[in-house]
């Protein structure tokens, strides 16, 4: 009995040792900043108290609550809408494309896959800049050049909330699809072909096969990547900021997500204590959103 307990303990120790490097890195780069931000949020660290800051308690949180006004509320709704729309389109597109790429006789699939990866191979700000000036620019952008060629009126694509939302979504999908496609494609390749063969013999069509074989098989494999993408989409900043709100290049749209809203209403003040309090509150909001979801349950035996 005692022997078994000992063995179990040793097993635990081995597990901890094997996981230690990874967990240590996460503790340093992911957990520590959160704790540190929380600490700073309790101080009055700002431009006027850069080195001689002191702990002032929850004052920053009291002030931060004023940021959560109607503007913040609509930014929050936008963010949820943004996440849902982007994830839905991404998943459906990636699934359909990956299925098509896995049709056996498609010889050039490697070439297609590589070309479709191109958006991912460029630094994000470069791609966003290309979209903003090359595509959406109202004077010179390709979109307006095509509109004019078709005899339609040129538009200011990024100037209203709705069209800016659509444009940002297009760019975000363009940026994010390669990754999702790669994950889905990899997952589909791990499915045993014989499942399909018997399904075809049973007369199942593509939709039925997808529903009853492909999706259940790939779900556990893609789940981590999908979950992480949901969070990335939720905290997406670059696409919306660089397309519509960059200093000196604002387009007139009032589209905000919670992060761009917090940036414009707090982070630019250089008041680290105050900004940290807002970061922590946003973080808690995110936690609340995901509270219902149980990642620990995935793959549990």
């Amino acid at each position, binding site marked *: 009995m005692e022997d078994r307990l000992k063995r179990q303990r040793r097993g*635990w120790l081995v597990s*901890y040792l094997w*996981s230690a490097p*990874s*967990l240590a890195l*996460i503790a*340093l*780069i*992911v957990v*520590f*900043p959160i704790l*540190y*931000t929380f600490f700073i949020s309790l101080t009055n660290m700002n431009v006027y108290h850069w080195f001689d800051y002191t702990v002032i308690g929850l004052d920053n949180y009291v002030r931060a609550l004023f940021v959560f006004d109607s503007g913040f509320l609509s930014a929050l709704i936008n963010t949820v809408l943004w996440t849902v729309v982007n994830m839905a389109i991404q998943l459906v597109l990636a699934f359909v*494309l990956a299925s098509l790429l896995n049709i056996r*006789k*498609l010889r050039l699939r*490697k070439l297609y*896959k*590589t*070309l*479709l990866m*191109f958006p991912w*191979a*460029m*630094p994000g700000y*470069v791609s966003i800049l*290309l979209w903003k000036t*090359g*595509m959406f*620019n109202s*004077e*010179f952008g*390709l979109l307006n050049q095509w509109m004019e060629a078709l005899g339609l009126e040129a538009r200011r694509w990024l100037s209203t909330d709705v069209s800016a939302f659509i444009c940002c979504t297009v760019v975000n999908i363009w940026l994010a699809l390669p990754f999702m496609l790669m994950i889905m494609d*990899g997952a589909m*390749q*791990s*499915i045993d072909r014989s499942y399909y063969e018997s399904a075809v013999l049973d007369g199942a069509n593509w939709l039925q096969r997808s529903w009853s074989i492909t999706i259940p098989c790939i779900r*556990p*494999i*893609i789940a*981590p*990547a999908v*979950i*992480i993408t949901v969070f990335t989409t939720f*905290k997406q*900043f670059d696409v919306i900021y660089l397309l519509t709100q960059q200093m000196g290049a604002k387009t007139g749209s009032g589209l905000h997500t919670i992060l761009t809203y*917090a*940036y414009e209403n707090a*982070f630019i003040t250089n008041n*680290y204590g105050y900004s940290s309090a807002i*970061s922590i509150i946003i*973080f808690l909001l*995110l*936690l609340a959103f*995901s509270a219902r979801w*149980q*990642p*620990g349950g*995935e793959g*549990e035996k």
Partner: protein
Amino acid sequence: MRGRRLREGAGLALLNVFFIALCFVTLIPILYALSVSLNGQNSLLSSDFSFIPKDFTLDNYLAVFTGEDILTWFGNSILLAAATVAVSLAAAVPAAYCFSRRSFPGRRLVLRWLVLLNSFPAILSMFAVYRLLRPMGLTNHRLGLIIVYTGTMAVFSLWNMKGYFDTVPVEIEEAARMDGATDLQVVTRIVLPLAKPSVVVTALMVLIYVWNEYIYATTFMTGEANYTLAAGLYSLQATEMSGSWPVFAAASITVSLPVLVIFFLSQKHMSSGLTAGGVKG
């Protein structure tokens, strides 16, 4: 029989046409950059654009390779990317294996919280990370960047590989253990080959992240000689007042090509070892 083959051929042709069209549509912004980079005039914008440059020249690519320290930046990027991928995998593979296969107190708790913690908006993290690295003397030091990059990607690496390990049947491992294989042997000889696609995907993801990351690279590293490609490119763009668009476009294309080559080459390793091994779960 012949009719069926004909129909299949037509379907395949249609599929190819579809993918060619899709690639073209996807690549429009990049073709745009390509055309700008091959054009003689100094403008990103032009009111009469065409995909075929009117004033064809390779001068801009020449300028990228002669005018900027692009080879130094390239070297820096390669070094950082290789080291980060190596450290990431070395740290994440054993951890992912433990979280997938072994049970120990705190396992569920850690798994549950990792993803949640990773959702912290990183805009203010930089300050904390700086405070962390400074006492260790790791600011303006490549090792500091490697730690930051590895840590940033650690949650993804761990989760992604753990998810895949979960789908590898335990029976094979148990058989190997019966034959007297140690833990290490089980992981390196059985689990890793079977989970190769997810290892490759994770490595690619880390590689591309490092390749494209510029915020930490420009803020933590000083001096053009220490820039990575993405950071160097960013500095080209940030000085838009004096910058040259065609050179910038040429540099953007140049930066992307190595990633594409690596992606193309890694594809054959992305198909699973599972079906190839003929094991059914």
